[in-house]
């Protein structure tokens, strides 16, 4: 190194070492400079974000609650029921309250003691809370009652499907939608359907007279995402003495 360079090095070191250092606590990032406006903006931003999250949560909570209470009215299905082997719902000892989770569905056959089936509203009413219900309207099936009677309603076997059912235990029944005297007697999914109509009716055999005349409603358990099938609403005899019909939901 030349002498001149050495002198310059000496000069630089001597003079620059006199530059005052910042306080030790400012050497690192901890003491970030933030103006009052920036700080206030930051707090406003945080508060806005928290408020937005709370509002969204509140809306979601109300929506969820409303979804549980309001009857869903999916469009009716006329398609025949696929009789795939599914667990036959039986009377459950517990009555699960409808809970959150993927919605299920209930499907089954319809019938009416005539050559036609009038337009119905099929209800699934929660066992635990009768205000929680789901329903579907079905159209008229079969020939007009004023026309000549036929052996059976033409086309596929009339059926219904209630979708969007919150998991839980339900009673399933149907009321006529048309104005007809006696339209407050519903069709129900009952013990009689399970024990007598399905085993014999499916086998095209006459129901034996010895079959118990039990028209008590059977609970249908809907599990998350599950479609419960063969919930046939085909028992119109709940008004017989010794039996009780469910009231028409309001």
């Amino acid at each position: 190194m030349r002498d001149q360079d050495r002198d310059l090095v000496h000069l630089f070191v001597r003079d620059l070492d006199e530059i005052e250092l910042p306080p030790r606590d400012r050497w690192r990032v901890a003491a970030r400079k933030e103006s009052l406006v920036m700080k206030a903006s930051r707090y406003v931003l945080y508060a806005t974000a928290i408020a937005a999250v709370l509002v969204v949560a509140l809306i979601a909570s109300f929506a969820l609650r409303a979804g549980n209470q309001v009857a869903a009215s999916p469009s009716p299905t006329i398609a025949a029921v696929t009789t795939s082997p599914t667990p036959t719902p039986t009377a459950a000892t517990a009555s699960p309250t409808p809970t959150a989770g993927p919605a299920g569905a209930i499907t089954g056959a319809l019938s009416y003691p005539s050559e036609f089936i009038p337009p119905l509203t099929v209800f699934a009413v929660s066992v635990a809370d009768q205000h929680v219900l789901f329903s579907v309207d079905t159209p008229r099936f079969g020939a007009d009652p004023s026309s000549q009677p036929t052996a059976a309603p033409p086309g596929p076997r009339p059926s219904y499907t209630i979708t969007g059912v919150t998991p839980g235990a339900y009673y399933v029944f149907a009321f006529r939608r048309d104005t007809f005297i006696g339209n407050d007697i519903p069709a129900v999914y009952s013990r009689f359907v399970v024990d007598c109509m399905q085993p014999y009716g499916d086998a095209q055999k006459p129901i034996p007279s010895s079959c118990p005349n039990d028209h008590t409603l059977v609970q249908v358990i809907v599990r998350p995402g599950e479609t419960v099938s063969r919930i046939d609403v085909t028992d119109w005899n709940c008004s017989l003495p010794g039996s009780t019909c469910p009231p028409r939901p309001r």
Partner: protein
Amino acid sequence: MPEFTVKRWEQLYDRAFPQVYRAVVAATLDRERALDGLHDAFEEGLRHPPSDDRNVEGWLYRVALRKTRRGLLRALREGSLGEVPADDPSAAVLQRLEVGRLLALLTKRQRAIVVAHYYLGLSQKEIAEAVGVRRGTVSATVSQSLARMRKGEAEHA
């Protein structure tokens, strides 16, 4: 950071801080920017530490200069801008010193290179890497800066 732990980095940073801070102040003539640049360099060191700890000063100087925005790369883009503002308090501090008067004669790029060379003792290769110029540019800039400082010194005398 397997062997280059956070604690180790903090130690190295603290050890290098006084010299690098003064060098960045001399190069930028702005103490707040120098501090901001070093804070950013410290954080970058936490995320991507230097490959070895033999020349932490050079690494910090390079990163801090880059972070100050008024570092040499920007000065290069802007041309030979950056004469010392008369009302800059940092400049005023430096101008009380002999070297401060000399540095005030130089452009930012010249200051950054001269300070790295005479104060930090970086080699031409290290300076070239630090400021992102060719090695020959470093050598030429040092010569030009010397001539300018000599001329200024002669005029002052």
